[in-house]
């Protein structure tokens, strides 16, 4: 029995590290990052969802997004957390817990977050959650507030997801 415990502990550490590795894909969102996100999706529709740990409406919406991802593995979703980059570990833990660790995720990483908000949308006051539905031509529709699953389903159908 004595030998099992350290082994178990080792196993737990391994599992923990494996999870950390999976969630370790948080990209720093800086000036120019949005263009990068858009450029790598040329010709493809995607949903850009801007959220924060401190936003309760965002947390409820995350559960819905996670469910949709399971339902539609091709759901092209990009998450941007407006929390400071210092909170990366918390953001990763949150995404992991919700089963969203595999989704492309970014976190604000500029000293002045107002510049990043302005770059995302010069008419956006920072209310969260904030979502942008990009069509295949990358014309986009901005929406403030928690999305409904049927809204996203309708958009996926319309854009041939």
């Amino acid at each position: 029995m004595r030998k099992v415990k350290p082994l178990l502990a080792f196993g737990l550490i391994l599992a923990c590290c494996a999870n950390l590795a999976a969630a370790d894909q948080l990209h720093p969102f800086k000036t120019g990052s949005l263009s990068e996100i858009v450029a790598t999706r040329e010709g493809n529709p995607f949903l850009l969802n801007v959220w924060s740990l401190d936003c309760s409406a965002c947390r409820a919406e995350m559960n819905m997004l996670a469910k949709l991802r399971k339902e539609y593995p091709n759901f092209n979703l990009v998450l941007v957390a407006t929390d400071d980059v210092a909170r990366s570990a918390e953001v990763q833990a949150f995404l992991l817990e919700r089963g969203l660790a595999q989704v492309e995720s970014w976190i604000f990483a500029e000293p002045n977050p107002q510049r990043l908000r302005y770059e995302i949308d010069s008419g956006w006051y920072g209310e969260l959650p904030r979502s942008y539905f990009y069509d295949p031509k990358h014309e986009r529709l901005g929406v403030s507030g928690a999305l409904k699953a049927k809204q996203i389903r309708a958009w996926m159908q319309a854009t041939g997801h």
Partner: protein
Amino acid sequence: MFSFTLGVVVLLSLLSGCETVATRPAGYRGEISADAAVAAATFGPGDRLWRLIAAGGRLYVDASEDHGASFTRPVPLNADAERVLAQAEDRPVIAVDAQERVYVLYAVGTPDAATSYLSVSNTAGRSFQAPVPVSDPAKAGGHTQDAMVVARSGRIYAFWNDDVDMGSARAEKQGAGLYFATAVAPLAASLSNRKLTDGMCNCCRIAVDVGVDDLPVVFGRFVFPGSIRDHGMLKASPAGLVGPPWRVTEDDWRIEACPMHGPALSIAPDGRYHAVWFTQGRRRQGLFYAHSDDQGKHFSNPMAIGEARKLAQHADVLAAGTGVVLVWKEFDGRQTHILSMRSADGGDTWSAPSAIARTSSDSDYPFLIKDSSGIFLSWNNAEHGHQLITIR
């Protein structure tokens, strides 16, 4: 998020363009955490400036006799580093009464489960009593937006939002509870609190001021049926709610989101209520000012403030005698500007907006504070630290 230095720049005689810059006292270096930021400031008796500083999970209070040119040594308030909520809509509050008792209300925890504490100094800021809890201990509920005023009688009133009895999902749809606690010095070991109303938007700061009857008036964003996030008011007394809350703004902002954009309220000595708020409603969009001469029951036609294309936001209002000042933030794509408008006739007519401060760095909300000589802008930004700027 903000990581501002404690440097204080005092800009005097702003109208003539003359700037007097005072450097910060050297004694701070290395004494408190490098992430130190002024979370709140106020004036007390003798025009003494009081600052509440958040640094490394601890709170400190210092004071200045000379409008920020020099400060007393910062006095710590909480014994250990804690997760003090100290940014944007969620921040600690400092208030000073006529006897120079200094009160600090602050929340510790995550936005999901925080507890508010109150600490008082009976020694004019030289020492603080151990903080006592004013809210129930942290549970799974959202608990945010501390607000506090000291009435002229010396009674303090503390307010905060909490969804402890309903959970965040329901609070998101129907609004959270507004809780309050009240006390007079000396403080008991713990304070009792109670819920005043439901239906508060739980991510917008609460505005509170004391009326001519010495009772506190709360101006906040409510969640009205249909997810309409417009504003309402309520009045409290030591016994609790005075009559039901009432609706104030009719902007019809239907949104299931965190606007993270609370209003501001200042009640003038003549009893006029001065209010500013932000909306993206169906009926109007942007920042607005209005005043009321019947204790908030009816307001003047909302006056639009600032430029929408520059994202005018986070306004504050303060009345001193018949003078009233408005400040707010704008962003031009590169720089953040603080703009101000002044009224000499109690808010009936206003000056054109003028830019009074700017930075290209990260910056906090602008706040207005007053002493016997006038109204000041108190503003943090990463570039200049904490600034006290005269508005006359």
